[in-house]
């Protein structure tokens, strides 16, 4: 299934009123997101990869032989075993090749204080962290995560996301992460596969797919782009941090990363507006010269305009009326006003 530095995923599956037909290669590095609406076939795809679903003409290798970790939507912990025994369950059965260090995985997911507890004493977020540790400790070739945060409320998600950030940076195991939440995808993933009605609509590096024509508007109101930048300096007086990227710099509130640290900067299309002339005396701190790269025609009230800033691309949501009144065309030089961005350290 894995060859060189990609994993080949090729599955055909026929179910009444649903066909899954996927043929893609995803990198063995970092986290690959599989994104799509409910019912698009994301879970079915993962179950095919794990061997829990038998596609036509698929390999006959059993679930056990495939050695693929699976984190389900629900934690699916074994209630008759302690947290420690749960985590050791896979390790004991697949200890032949050494596998990851127990203490390191426990520390990575912050489970030091839970080991002797019973799964029934854990919160949903804690249980899901145990499930992730359990999958990692079975030393899988790669880990599948099927919307591991979907069954949790926002507070629990916020509690578990930092652990996934750390996993992203520190884990050597490639992860395929299914989600229908574009914010999660932008935060955690490097490679993006978009599927709809059982077929792949777009795939590629996260940054490329987010601004591509086929996938623009992914996530509806939450649509946007991601660019790579660095922490430059911190202004203690105003509590602002300056970030630099290939096309200029941003100010963001608070302290973000140590000086020089690489950052992932997420910019929602709804937070970007365009001006023909550089606005003076604006309350918006971040006004950056940009070039209109692509201006799709749309039949709704607003369109997503793709902008080039340095070598980075971002998208802005503007109304059709504004496009007409400002007479915006591809190649035009404009000023992008960026109201807010979210940043996350990537190492």
């Amino acid at each position, binding site marked *: 299934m894995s060859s060189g530095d990609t994993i080949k995923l090729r599955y055909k599956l026929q179910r009444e009123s649903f066909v899954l037909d996927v043929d893609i290669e995803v990198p063995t590095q970092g986290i690959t997101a599989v994104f799509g609406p409910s019912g698009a076939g994301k879970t079915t795809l993962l179950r095919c990869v794990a061997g829990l679903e038998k596609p036509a003409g698929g390999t006959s290798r059993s679930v056990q032989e495939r050695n693929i970790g*699976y984190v389900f939507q629900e934690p699916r912990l074994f209630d008759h075993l302690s947290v420690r025994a749960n985590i050791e369950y896979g390790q004991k059965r697949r200890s032949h090749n050494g596998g990851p260090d127990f203490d390191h995985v426990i520390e990575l997911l912050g489970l030091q204080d839970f080991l002797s507890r019973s799964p029934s004493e854990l919160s949903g977020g804690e249980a899901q962290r145990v499930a992730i540790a359990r999958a990692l400790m079975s030393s899988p070739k790669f880990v599948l995560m099927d919307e591991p945060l979907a069954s949790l409320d926002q507070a629990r998600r916020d509690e578990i996301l930092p652990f996934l950030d750390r996993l992203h940076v520190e884990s050597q195991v490639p992860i395929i992460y299914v989600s229908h939440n574009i914010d999660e995808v932008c935060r955690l993933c490097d490679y993006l596969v978009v599927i709809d009605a059982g077929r792949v609509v777009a795939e590629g590096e996260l940054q490329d797919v987010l601004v591509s024509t086929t996938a623009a508007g992914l996530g509806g109101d939450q649509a946007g782009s991601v660019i790579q930048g660095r922490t430059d300096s911190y202004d203690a007086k105003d509590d602002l941090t300056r970030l630099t990227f290939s096309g200029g710099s941003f100010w963001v509130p608070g302290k973000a990363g140590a000086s020089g640290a690489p950052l992932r900067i997420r910019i929602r299309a709804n937070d970007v507006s365009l001006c023909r002339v550089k606005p003076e005396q604006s309350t918006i701190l971040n006004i950056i010269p940009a070039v209109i790269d692509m201006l799709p025609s749309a039949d709704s009230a607003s369109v997503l305009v793709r902008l080039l800033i340095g070598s980075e691309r971002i998208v802005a949501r503007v109304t059709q009326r504004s496009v007409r009144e400002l007479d915006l065309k591809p190649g035009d030089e404009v000023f992008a006003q960026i109201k807010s961005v979210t940043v996350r350290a990537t190492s």
Partner: protein
Amino acid sequence: MDLLWQPLLLSIQLAGVTTIVLVVVATPIAWWLSQSDSSWKPLVQTTVALPIVLPPTVLGFYLLIVLGPAGALGGWWVEITGSALTFSFTGLVIASCIYSLPFAVQPLTAAFESLGKQKLEAAWTLGASRMDAFFSVAVPLSIRGYLGAVVLSFAHTLGEFGVVLMVGGNIPGETRVVSIAIYDQVESLNYGAAHQLSALLLVVAFIALFAMFFVNRRWQR
């Protein structure tokens, strides 16, 4: 004193052996019933449930024929061991297993069904073989089903009468269990002994059932 204790010990011995055999036999049947979509399933379900519906005399009559020296199983048994299955303790164990089978299969099937596939799938992805996952995940998580199966099989076997009378007769120390002994005492108008035996059986049955419901309640939390 032997008149009192011997039948009781024999009853407990019979119920104990039957329960052990039934747990082993009922586990694969219950597992198959809980997982299968086979068109044979209703047939197996019906067969397993029949002893609940049939009068013990009907069951006992057929068993007497099958287990008797002229019967298929009984004849074979005589060839192998030189003794008959009918009117023996071994014959009683076989009859009791069939008589109490539904009381072992049904709680186990219910437990396996409520377990679902989810935890088993998790175990498989962690490298456990199907057999390994069954014993390390399905059985321990179905422990309440096993408790129910054990107590019900035991109690039901303890209380059987008709089948024992048909297949086992009334041989002291071999087939005269408590229920037969009580019948015997009443027949000979020996009400005192019948009282004692009945009271003993009542207490044993009460304790067995109470223990099950008590432990079940503890495990619920």
